[in-house]
């Protein structure tokens, strides 16, 4: 842009000095042509004289237009090669061989791309770095799932003979094996001590979701609650491997076909009870043989507990066979009972000391050696405990009768499992509970009377565990030491189990747990294996089942009429 400055004879306005002043003053305009003009005008003001004036050439640089364009993720190498190519074109043909050489070199560079190799040391360093481990943990999880899904999308139905898939279909009412969970490293030679399914909460508000800045995989699993396919199993110590941690808890996933655990946790002392913390989506609570309660968190990448209770007289010093989180989202406690009769109530945020603790003693004599504990549905104050002597007690946490209330005698051997009726329906059966014991029997009780309502004597070995179905009012499962898994449907028959299966290899079965939906049963055995069985039609409740069960109960009571002592109290709820 050129600006041509044409000065005319008229004096520029701002620079005029009064003509009367004899002295000429230099104005700010130092252009000699203008000065000249001024001088001229001073002397001969009246005469207007047009003359050529000097042209000043001024060059203004073009205005810089700043523009922002979208950044794309192209690598530097590609960029450089592009630039080089352009340069080559621009320079045209210089000396032929020179150009060829140049081309070769560049192509070699871009082809090799990364001639630098890492040394062994550098590699080891990377392999041990924290961020690498986090990446590895995440990616391997995803990769294993992808590997396990063997869906062949190219399968051609026309050209092949389809093998008829013969499943274990023994009619709709029986049990069929779904899966087996077993880990070579962590399950071998360990006894399964406890099982727990991830709870299915019906209030979506209570499920806390993680923030979006976490990677997709960890977002998926950071909240256990929405994923009822997760099952945790705790394992005893491995006597053949004294250097391995004594206590192991593995979280298994039913949804994907991969055969390795979703999460692996361990601790120093054998874990004898484990459970998902109901109102804390990322926590797993474990009770150990030493009396310590441990807390694992799936948000951290550590396999060891993030919190532990102290091993002091204030807490537990005996094995903790019962851990249970009760309450509501806003007011919940972890209740633990150890075999020396001590019950402690904890706040999961602070495990350094229990909120309250009490000794469970009956009639002010010696404390009860508790082997199992259960809370009736909806009750947070009253609970039932089973003892090593074979007696069952009810107890309350608070109130005027805090501690042991009633005694229920009936079993002749240590009580191994207790389960309170949990199926919700038109009729309330929450006063019912079943117990299993070393005396080869399973007994049905009501909290309203202190003698059993009925005794199921179909087993020929210690019955290790029993559990009511969460959806069907008259169905419960029991496992014994001969590898038998029995399903009893009381509406059907009270003398023999409605369905029964013997686990392959007939190992002693230590634990049985229904899945939250009531369609699957998980069984843990003494060899470290978790068997998942599908229960078919049998598990589906019908609305008349509740009324039917009411009749069944009346019949049971009627038959058992003789020798029944009416229990003194109905427990305050």
């Amino acid at each position, binding site marked *: 842009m050129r600006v041509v400055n044409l000065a005319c004879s008229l004096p520029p306005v701002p620079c005029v000095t009064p003509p009367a002043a004899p002295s000429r003053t230099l104005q700010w305009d130092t252009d000699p042509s203008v000065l000249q003009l001024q001088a001229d005008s001073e002397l001969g003001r009246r005469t207007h004289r047009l003359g050529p004036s000097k042209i000043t050439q001024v060059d203004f640089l073009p205005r810089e237009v700043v523009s922002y364009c979208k950044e794309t993720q192209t690598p530097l190498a590609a960029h450089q090669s592009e630039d080089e190519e352009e340069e080559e074109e621009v320079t045209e043909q210089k000396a032929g061989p020179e150009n060829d050489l140049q081309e070769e070199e560049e192509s070699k560079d871009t082809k090799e791309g990364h001639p630098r190799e890492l040394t062994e040391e550098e590699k080891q360093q990377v392999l041990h770095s924290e961020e690498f481990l986090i990446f590895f943990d995440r990616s391997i999880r995803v990769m294993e799932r992808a*590997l396990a899904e063997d869906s062949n999308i190219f399968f051609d139905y026309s050209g092949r003979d389809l093998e008829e898939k013969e499943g274990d279909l023994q009619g709709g009412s029986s049990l069929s094996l779904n899966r087996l969970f077993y880990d070579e490293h962590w399950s071998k030679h360990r006894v399964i001590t406890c099982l727990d399914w991830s709870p299915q909460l019906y209030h979506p508000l209570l499920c806390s979701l993680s923030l979006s800045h976490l990677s997709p995989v960890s977002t998926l699993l950071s909240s256990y609650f929405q994923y009822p396919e997760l099952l945790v199993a705790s394992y005893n110590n491995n006597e053949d491997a004294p250097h391995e941690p004594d206590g192991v808890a593995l979280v298994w996933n039913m949804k994907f076909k991969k055969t390795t655990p979703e999460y692996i946790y361990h601790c120093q002392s054998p874990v004898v009870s484990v459970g998902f913390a109901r109102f804390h989506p990322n926590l797993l609570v474990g009770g150990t043989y030493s009396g310590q309660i441990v807390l694992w968190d799936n948000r951290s990448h550590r396999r060891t507990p993030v919190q532990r209770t102290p091993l002091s007289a204030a807490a537990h010093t005996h094995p903790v066979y019962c851990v249970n989180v009760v309450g509501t989202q806003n007011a919940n406690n972890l209740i633990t009972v150890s075999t020396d009769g001590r019950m402690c109530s904890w706040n999961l945020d602070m495990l350094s000391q229990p909120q309250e603790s009490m000794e469970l003693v009956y009639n002010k004599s010696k404390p009860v050696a508790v082997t199992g504990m259960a809370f009736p549905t909806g009750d947070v104050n009253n609970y039932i405990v089973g003892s090593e002597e074979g007696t069952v007690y009810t107890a309350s946490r608070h109130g005027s009768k805090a501690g042991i209330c009633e005694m229920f005698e009936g079993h002749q051997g240590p009580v191994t499992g207790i389960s309170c009726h949990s199926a919700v329906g038109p009729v309330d059966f929450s006063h019912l509970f079943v117990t299993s014991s070393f005396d080869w029997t399973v007994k049905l009780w009501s909290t309203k009377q202190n003698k059993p309502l009925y005794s199921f004597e179909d087993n020929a070995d210690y019955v290790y565990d029993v559990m009511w179905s969460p959806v069907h009012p008259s169905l419960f499962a029991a496992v014994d030491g001969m590898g038998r898994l029995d399903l009893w449907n009381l509406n059907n028959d009270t003398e023999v189990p409605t369905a029964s299966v013997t686990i392959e290899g007939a190992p002693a079965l230590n634990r049985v747990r229904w899945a939250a939906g009531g369609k699957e049963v998980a069984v843990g055995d003494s060899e470290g294996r978790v068997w998942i069985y599908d229960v078919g039609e049998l598990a589906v409740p019908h609305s008349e089942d509740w009324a039917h069960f009411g009749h069944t109960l009346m019949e049971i009571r009627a038959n058992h009429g003789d020798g029944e002592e009416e229990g003194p109290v109905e427990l305050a709820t």
Partner: protein
Amino acid sequence: MAEVEETIKRIQSQKGVQGIIIVNAEGIPIKSTLDNSSTVQYAGNVHQLLMKARGMVRDIDPQNDLTFLRVRSKKNEIMIAPDKDYFLIVVQNPTE
């Protein structure tokens, strides 16, 4: 750590898996169960493909990012799990 070794060995022993390679952000292989020349070949090619794929995803939607890449061919399948600093490549033969 030994866990990394163990895990890699376990995956390698699964049926159909031909090789596992861990590559860093620059495309330099850090760990591999294949021979050196194949490793370098895979690493280099996968790295380029990854950059292209990632660039494509970001180009279409800048808020988006690549999470997993699976290349299915006649003979095998290459699965790539990318990350900010590293990526994991597993080559398997799915019909085996």
